[in-house]
């Protein structure tokens, strides 16, 4: 599967604090962060930068859907659950209905199992509790590479 125009993918091993990590040095991975909390947006953006990724950030599900509707392709979408205007559940359902097959990862506060299940059933690939950490992002990138 082609990861966007001119995409190339290679993995390099980097030693971080003595631990070998698989990180993608593919700067063509495109990421969308969808969260109404400016603190989370900044935090996730910084985490992604550490992995050499640049993210677009939007503050609600509708903006995410609009971006994809107008042709922007993302390899990875980090989707918050509770947002105004359009929440993560609805946005994920709409994206999947549109045929978007990006890796969509839900990011939630600690919700009930039922609420997390509802979010997963909307079409997520994975769902993690906030905030994302370096380990979780590393895992997500490994999955992204497998998918592609």
């Amino acid at each position, binding site marked *: 599967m082609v990861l966007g125009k001119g995409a190339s993918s290679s993995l390099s091993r980097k030693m971080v604090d003595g631990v070998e990590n698989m990180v993608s040095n593919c700067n063509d991975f495109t990421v969308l962060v969808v969260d109404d909390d400016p603190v989370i947006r900044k935090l996730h953006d910084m985490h992604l*930068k*550490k992995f050499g990724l640049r993210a677009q950030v939007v503050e609600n599900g509708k903006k995410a859907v609009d971006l994809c509707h107008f042709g922007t392709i993302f390899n990875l979408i980090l989707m918050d659950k*509770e947002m105004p205007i359009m929440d993560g559940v609805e946005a994920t359902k709409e994206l999947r209905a549109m045929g978007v097959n990006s890796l969509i990862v839900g990011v939630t506060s600690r919700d009930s199992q039922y609420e997390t299940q509802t979010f997963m059933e909307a079409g997520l690939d994975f769902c993690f509790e906030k905030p994302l950490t370096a380990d979780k992002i590393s895992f997500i990138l490994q999955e992204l590479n497998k998918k592609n």
Partner: protein
Amino acid sequence: MDVVSQLQRQFIDYSASLHREGFVDDQFTQLQKLQDENSPDFVVEVASLFFEDCEKLINNMARALEQQQGVDFKQVDASVHQLKGSSSSIGAMRVKNVCINFRSFCEAQNREGCLRCLQQVTHEYSLLKSKLQTLFRLEQQLLAAGGSIK
């Protein structure tokens, strides 16, 4: 002890006290580890965003709880939920813990309980803001003297 070592000791001790007294948890340490030479003000920027967010959300909660005709507890809960999320992300442990209680009172539609929590969260936010401003000031003094926080 030279000036830099003294300032470094002050910074380390103050940072340790914030953890010991429960103002911040390990998530704050993780934020500090994300800061690097490309983003030297990352922690200050995140903290500033958090404080702006706090003030906005606390005002929302206060307005919603003031409604005499009937408090919209879902609206209050939405703001508390958001504050819980961002306080958890920055490592503001005491603020987060008040939010956990606050949500229980929202669920129970207990206005008095909510008002008490609003008072507590305002108090904890003010305390934290003051503590972090002191920490950042100590950091600036250390850096100005040629020391480092790593």
